[in-house]
């Protein structure tokens, strides 16, 4: 099985779908000649031509809005936001138009919006955000947050195949740092199915995206002290795999939810609420959250480090829970 970086796996998934299905096209800023700001679509225009790898004007509203129209006409558009942060400029087209069209008019809108998200490299307030909870709140949208190269490929193919608008949050900090085996052939991974990243008995740790690696390291550290952590990678936050989380909590009786997004109204709040509503009798401790604080993502390295949850923050949370 070939080893690919997370970024190469995204490229591979997109290429596989574009070769298989000529309704799939890519549109975004600098995606053609330049190959995308992060080079996800490098070489694509040579292979697929300028009308399937479309360099758009700096106009997120037109990029995403036009995807909706093209999808209704039978295409399978994949839009690239240069950074997830800029999806704010396309908010109306996702939330007002695409998300509600099936419910109101019976018209499916199969579009994918790729959103390079997350911080960890001094991107500052406008190149580091994790906007998944805002969209997970909107009925009609799906939100995907892969953590591994194999998931990045399979979930992208599933997102393109899905008949709904899907936000595909690809974490920038994983692009070149994470490499792993990825099947060469085409495969899909169902949206809404979590993955047990490591099995354990004492505490359930729920997370997604780049935080999977932070969580894994924290789990390894506490394991040396005899605390066994079950780490669940949600993989998609809308829909999210409630059953996998509840089943694990019933086994461990304690839970910690970790995310890189800010705290108030973050998706962790929904998970905690669900655990307390549906697994209260299983709990031996209050459910804990480890998240970014309620602030914009700061630029300067010590500030950014204080903002993004670190391994030691997760370790401290796990120890608190274990001692409760």
């Amino acid at each position, binding site marked *: 099985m070939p080893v690919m970086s997370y970024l190469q796996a995204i490229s591979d998934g997109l290429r596989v779908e574009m070769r298989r299905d000529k309704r799939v*096209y890519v549109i975004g800023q600098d995606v053609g000649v330049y190959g995308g700001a992060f080079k996800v679509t490098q070489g694509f225009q040579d292979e697929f031509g300028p*009308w*399937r790898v*479309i360099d*758009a*004007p700096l*106009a997120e*509203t*037109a*990029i*995403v*809005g*036009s*995807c*909706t*129209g*093209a*999808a*209704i*006409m*039978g*295409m399978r*558009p994949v839009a690239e936001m240069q950074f997830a942060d800029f999806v704010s400029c396309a908010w*109306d*087209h996702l939330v*007002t*138009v695409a998300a*509600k*069209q*099936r*419910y*109101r*008019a*019976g*018209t*499916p*809108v*199969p579009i994918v919006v790729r959103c390079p998200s997350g911080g960890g490299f001094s991107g500052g307030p406008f190149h580091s955000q994790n906007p998944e909870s805002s969209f997970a709140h909107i*009925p*009609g949208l*799906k939100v995907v947050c892969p953590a591994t190269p194999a998931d990045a490929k399979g979930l992208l193919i599933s997102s393109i195949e899905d*008949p*709904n608008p899907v936000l595909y949050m690809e974490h920038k900090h994983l692009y070149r740092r994470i490499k792993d085996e990825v099947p060469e052939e085409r495969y899909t991974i169902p949206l809404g199915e979590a993955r047990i990243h490591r099995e354990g008995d004492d505490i359930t740790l729920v997370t997604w995206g780049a935080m999977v690696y932070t969580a894994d390291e924290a789990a390894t550290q506490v394991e040396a002290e005899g605390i066994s952590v079950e780490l669940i990678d949600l993989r998609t936050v809308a829909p999210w795999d409630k059953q996998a989380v509840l089943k694990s909590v019933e086994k461990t009786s304690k839970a910690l939810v970790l995310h890189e997004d800010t705290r108030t109204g973050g998706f962790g709040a929904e998970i905690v609420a669900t655990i307390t509503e549906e697994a209260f009798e299983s709990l031996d401790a209050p459910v804990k959250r480890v998240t970014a604080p309620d602030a914009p993502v700061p630029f300067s390295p010590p500030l950014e480090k204080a903002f993004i949850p670190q391994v030691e923050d997760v370790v401290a949370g796990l120890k608190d829970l274990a001692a409760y």
Partner: protein
Amino acid sequence: MAIAREAEPVGSLKEVREAGLDREDLLTVYRNMLVTRGVEERGHILYRQGKIPGSFYTGRGNEAGSVGVATAMGPNDVGTPLHRDMGVHITRGVEPWRIFAQYMGRADGPTKGRDGNVHMADGRLGLIAMVSHLPAMLPVAVGCALAFRIREEKRVAVGWFGEGASARGDCHEAMTLAGTRRLPMVFVCDNNQWAYSTPTHLEYASETVADRAQAYGFEGVVVDGTDVLAVYREARRAIEKAREGGGPTLIECLTLRMEGHAVHDDAFYVPKEMFEEWAKRDPIERFRSWLKDNADLTDEEEDEIALEIKKIMNDAMKRADDSPLPDPSTVTEGVYATPEDLDTPHHK
């Protein structure tokens, strides 16, 4: 001085024939305008009877603009009509009873009670349902044109917007993308001179909305929006130009919104003389007298058409009133599409 071209009025029957309409077509246009107004007038009655929840909007004064453009569209062309464009739905073949059912929030309306008033469309007729964020439909229409261009199909997308909607960024972005890629797209501005209570000079500072087209690299034309034949001729010219690869056109149809923004609004801010002046240019009356002068419309024919439309309206109101209210237990149905939803010819 305006940059956009000002369209000439259409004169004789000969000229109309050259533009592609025979006498039978002209009578169909006339019927469609009457049905458009008929639906909205009866909508008012239903509203006053308390049968329409929420608010109620009409496009009185815009019948020539909406019917004229829709008449010029080909069967495989698509469009995103807005709330003043009932004539587009009628011309494309939406049955009036389904519109009344939509108004009344019934299960047989095109949105099955999930949305109200003109927020509806029949996709099989090439129409896409509008949202309240009006100019948002322009990038959607541009996306349809982009799909046609990618697949090299000779189809055209028509996107409607008002002079009020022209102020928002969506309008600029849609025209930028359509212009840079020379997409098969026609932009139609229903300029009814009032965006709710805001007059045109507070919506745009150019002389006309169509003037902007030059900046986007395509042609702009201002047409008398009460003259259905002039609207039709300009729309057809623009649609066929787009179909042949000539890129977009912006057509501005100038008219007056003859009622308030919605049923609750008495439009006190519109000068009385303005209403009086534009009432003399009522699109339906203008076309009726043109037909009498140029196409031998007889009194008997006129009566026959009036009776026919009255029957369509009465039957439609009754059929809509018989339609059930939606079942509350279906409230969450259809939020997400299923793979079966894509089991349609154009998704293959």
